[in-house]
């Protein structure tokens, strides 16, 4: 296939890709540009269509219509074995009747690369994923983390310019998963191939990605940097799905935003006329008095206190009956300042961190 980009990465252009199963839209007119060499994560709840989109890129799912370009070339009707994209499967899909080296060498064998060169490249790939010397192992002798690395080595050994990953870390335990997140990130920086990563784990998405594409009901909800996704959600769905948040309805009158009659200063918000105010638990602080003019203030009553080790949570009922959560780190003086259950307190939110969320229907 003619490839114009001589770099080791290719951009992906997705245009109005649609896939229906009966009446259900798994993908609904999805447009998405993945830049050359970037690490982009498709994030969404299960059944959102993120995996379907990845399978369309890999060629395993045939969409109803749409266009997918790798670089300049249209691949939408190209069979999977001609697409030259690496893929890491959720369950790794390592061939159990081959050794580690046999698995990693398989794509090289298919490409008719001579045995000596192939052996070197397999050894290199094993080194890249820090499994040097594991070539002769059988697949069933590997731990989950090692299988994960072998699957990765197999996906990159033929130097594809696009790498797809389908929840590759979901089978690992928490510690190993967090370790692998950092390692994958470093590996991506080193190899530089365009990477599309699917996960339902928002922390993973925020940790690893250059940009995150939030997907729900087959639609692209927001495409932004992790920071932007978290701080300036473009819809109530994204605000609720990413992190914890409570949304308070606000009134707009004469250019002034107010909640329950109290004026709110929205210096930090990119959306100036959103109809909800987003309260993140870690952005709220406990104030000693109502008159701190530096903050937007909310009065409430402590409902419950939960100690969670590194932090504690206060559940506070505001005057209009809404429950909000406040998170505070477990430092000695902060713990000492924790009010008792049922006491009246004042919560503060800095105007720079005060963000309005547009209604999804707007």
């Amino acid at each position: 296939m003619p490839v114009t980009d001589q770099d080791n990465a290719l951009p992906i252009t997705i245009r109005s890709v649609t896939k229906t199963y009966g009446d259900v839209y798994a993908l609904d007119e999805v447009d998405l540009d993945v830049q050359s060499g970037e690490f982009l994560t498709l994030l969404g709840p299960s059944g959102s269509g993120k995996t379907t989109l990845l399978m369309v890129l890999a060629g395993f799912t045939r969409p109803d219509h749409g266009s997918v370009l790798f670089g300049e070339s249209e691949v939408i009707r190209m069979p999977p074995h001609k697409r030259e994209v690496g893929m890491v499967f959720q369950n790794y899909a390592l061939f159990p009747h081959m050794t580690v080296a046999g698995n990693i060498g398989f794509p090289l064998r298919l490409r008719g690369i001579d045995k000596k060169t192939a052996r070197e490249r397999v050894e290199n790939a094993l080194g890249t994923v820090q499994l040097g010397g594991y070539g002769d192992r059988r697949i069933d002798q590997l731990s989950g983390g090692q299988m994960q690395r072998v699957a990765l080595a197999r996906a990159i050994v033929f130097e594809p310019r696009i790498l797809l990953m389908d929840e590759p870390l979901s089978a690992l335990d928490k510690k190993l998963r967090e370790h692998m997140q950092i390692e994958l990130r470093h590996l991506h920086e080193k190899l530089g191939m365009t990477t599309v990563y699917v996960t339902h784990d928002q922390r993973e998405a925020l940790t690893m990605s250059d940009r995150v594409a939030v997907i729900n009901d087959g639609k692209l909800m927001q495409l932004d940097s992790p920071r932007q996704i978290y701080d300036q959600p473009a819809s109530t769905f994204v605000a609720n799905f990413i992190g914890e948040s409570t949304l308070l309805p606000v009134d707009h009158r004469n250019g002034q935003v107010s909640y329950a009659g109290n004026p709110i200063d929205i210096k930090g918000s990119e959306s100036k006329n959103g109809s909800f105010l987003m309260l993140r638990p870690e952005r709220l602080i406990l104030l000693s008095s109502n008159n701190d003019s530096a903050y937007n203030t909310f009065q409430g009553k402590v409902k419950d206190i939960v100690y969670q080790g590194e932090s504690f949570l206060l559940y506070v009922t505001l005057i209009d009956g809404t429950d909000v959560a406040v998170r505070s780190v477990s430092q000695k003086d902060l713990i000492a300042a924790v009010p008792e259950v049922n006491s009246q307190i004042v919560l503060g939110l800095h105007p720079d961190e005060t963000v309005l969320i547009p209604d999804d229907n707007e």
Partner: protein
Amino acid sequence: MADSANSMGNTLTRINAVGLRQDERRERLALFGLSVPAILLVIVIVAIPVGWLFWLSLFNDEGVLSTYNYTRMLESKSYFRIFRTTFNVSFMTTALCVIIGYPFAYFLAQLPQRWANIGLIAVLLPFWTSLLVRTYAWLVVLQRKGLVNQWGMELGLWDAPLRLVHNMNGTLIGMAHIMLPFLVLPLYGSMRTIDQDYVKAASNLGASPFQAFWNIYLPLSLPGLFAGIVVVFVLCLGFFVTPAVLGGGRIIMVSMKIETIIDLFFNFGTASALGVVLMLLTLLVLFISHKLLRLDRVLGGGGGS
């Protein structure tokens, strides 16, 4: 206080240890008890008859203890020929079953579960009909003036009736038909456990559909295929009804020879010796295939995930 309690635990009996050990022993005995009926059954219907068979084979025609029945088998060419025919027929039947059964099992394994179940019922349906009836049905279909020859000649495909029965053709057709389910069932079972992601991974890595099948799917389905082959081959070795009816006396297998010897000559010694040798050869086949299957497991072709 804590120290004294500790030392008491060590020097005297640990709390409830004796009772717990008793419970464990009682449980094991109960489990063993469950297998007693099966063990008795095996002794009565397998061990005793086989032992008796072996005992009978050690006496010659005059009822004197001798190895005559076995030495005669080695000297006579006709016995060798019968064993060769038996293995030949078994081998060809098995090969036919693989050629017909593998693609069919593969087809079923690719279908959605609902449709595959219907296909499986079609495979199992013949089991509900008597073996004898099915064999005679083939006789009707394949004979000189049977359906196949009538239709074939009416359509002008051939001029003279084909000799489809009372020879090797008929025997193989009939036996392959009877044996096919024994190959398809274990093969289908093992194919169902092959994760479709393996084939996807192969094609993602650049394998054409044929390369993916040849390098990945086929090796992973081998354990099931071997299991089916062993079952079919071993069943064929001792098969009687179908070759007797469809072979027309031209295809003599060991089981048929045993029947003749008893029916015509009433020679239990020779018949028993034949039976013992067939059994030993069957055990040898099972032993070799067991080694092969084990080897396969060592190589990691578990078929599953």
